[in-house]
């Protein structure tokens, strides 16, 4: 499966009557098994780009091609759980075909076992984010979209969840698109990094990381980090 993004422009009409350019031409493609990472300053149009890719916003120029049968798993910036359904129901409603065994495994990996019957209002933000992750993985997605899934979590928890995402992504061939501010998340999870400019967003540079995720030692990560820092200085 293959996701092709070819946006030629996106404008918002402002309240004053003028138009505002949100996205400059942006195009990239993603294969099954690949993790693409969008990195860019706040407000550059990343979320708008995701909404277009997910089909939530059809008012843009260009085209998105993804297989119509592709199942989508999404982790929004806020968990977006149904407050009136339990943790388990939240996952099952999005993924009605999930087997008991699969669900039990997901809940074990994400340490949600004790919270199956809790309502989202009773959970901390960290737990709610894990439920959102469980929901996205339970659908066995072909396209997994993660919009800053680790924002506002403490480092230790973010690190653990990042490892869990890596484990889950490694399990099946899935096209993954990750949006993040964190360079660290990007180089630990990504196969290809797309560095975005400020609004209107365009891809300033595409950085492939050739070393497989599992084999990235701290030394290698340090080298990639330095390389990226140099690139970012250069583009400024």
């Amino acid at each position, binding site marked *: 499966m293959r996701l092709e993004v070819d946006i030629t422009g996106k404008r918002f009409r402002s309240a004053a009557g003028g138009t505002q350019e949100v996205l400059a031409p942006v195009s990239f493609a993603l294969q099954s098994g690949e993790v693409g990472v969008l990195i860019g300053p706040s407000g550059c149009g990343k979320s708008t780009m995701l909404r277009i890719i997910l*089909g939530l916003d059809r008012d843009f120029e260009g085209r998105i091609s993804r297989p119509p049968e592709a199942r989508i798993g999404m982790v929004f910036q806020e968990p977006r759980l*149904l407050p009136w359904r339990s943790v388990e129901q939240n996952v099952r409603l999005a993924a009605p075909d999930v087997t008991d065994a699969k669900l039990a495994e997901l809940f074990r990996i994400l340490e949600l076992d004790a919270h199956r019957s809790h309502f989202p209002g*009773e959970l901390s933000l960290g737990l709610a984010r894990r439920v959102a992750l469980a929901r996205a993985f339970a659908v066995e997605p072909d396209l997994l979209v993660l919009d800053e899934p680790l924002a506002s979590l403490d480092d230790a928890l973010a690190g653990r969840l990042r490892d869990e995402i890596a484990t889950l992504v490694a399990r099946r061939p899935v096209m993954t698109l990750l949006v993040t501010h964190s360079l660290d998340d990007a180089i630990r999870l990504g196969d290809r990094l797309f560095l975005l400019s400020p609004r209107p967003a365009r891809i300033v540079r595409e950085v492939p990381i050739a070393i497989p995720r599992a084999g990235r030692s701290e030394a290698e990560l340090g080298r990639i980090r330095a390389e990226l820092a140099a690139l970012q200085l250069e583009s400024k």
Partner: protein
Amino acid sequence: MLRLLSFALFLAIWWIAALFVGATKLPSPPAVLDVVIAEASSGALFLHLGATLARVSLAFVLAMSLGSAIGYLMGRVKLADRLGDPWLILLLNLPALVVIVLAYIWAGLTEAAAVAAIAINKLPTAIVTLREGTRALDRSLDEMASVFAMPRWRAFRHVVLPQLAPYIAASARSGLSLVWKIVLVAELLGRPNGVGFEIGVAFQLFDTPRLLAYSLTFAAVVLVIETALVQPFEARATRWRPRAA
């Protein structure tokens, strides 16, 4: 316990007031109770209560289901809202009496005319409440349902309906009291039975005990429906909310 105390206070005030103004204007509680017992043992009370209850439930169900559907549509579809809004304002401001009289003139003094007139009076408030509820729906949850490709019915049942439940409960509660007030007028004007008819007769004879006997029993029935049906539904619909201490 507190409710019981409050009810006892009501009875006490009534009794004392009855002593002051005299039995012809305000009969004492036992006098009214005597009439209730007499009417109940003759069976008339149940006949009239039953007739009124049947009209209330029929008109209520009709207005609630139709009103909720129209309100949801107007909340979701802008075109429907703009087309429906003038009608809605007209209906909202049409006096109940006008609707009832016109219904009887156009459709005759029939059961259908009575039920329709009552339902039409309740309809606009149900529409307005549900339209507000629909407008307040959380768009971000709609997006979630759409991204996860939830089938329409499942999304409606699990994403939309729980958000509308408080509005439906509020509409049911205010609607029940509205319908109960209007049904009596409709019965007074054009039906040969029901609590409203009996009250009309009592009025012509200045029979205050009879008037109170009928209206209070019906108020009691409404109270039972409210606590046995509407409140449990409301509690169930909001049980996911963390309780305030």
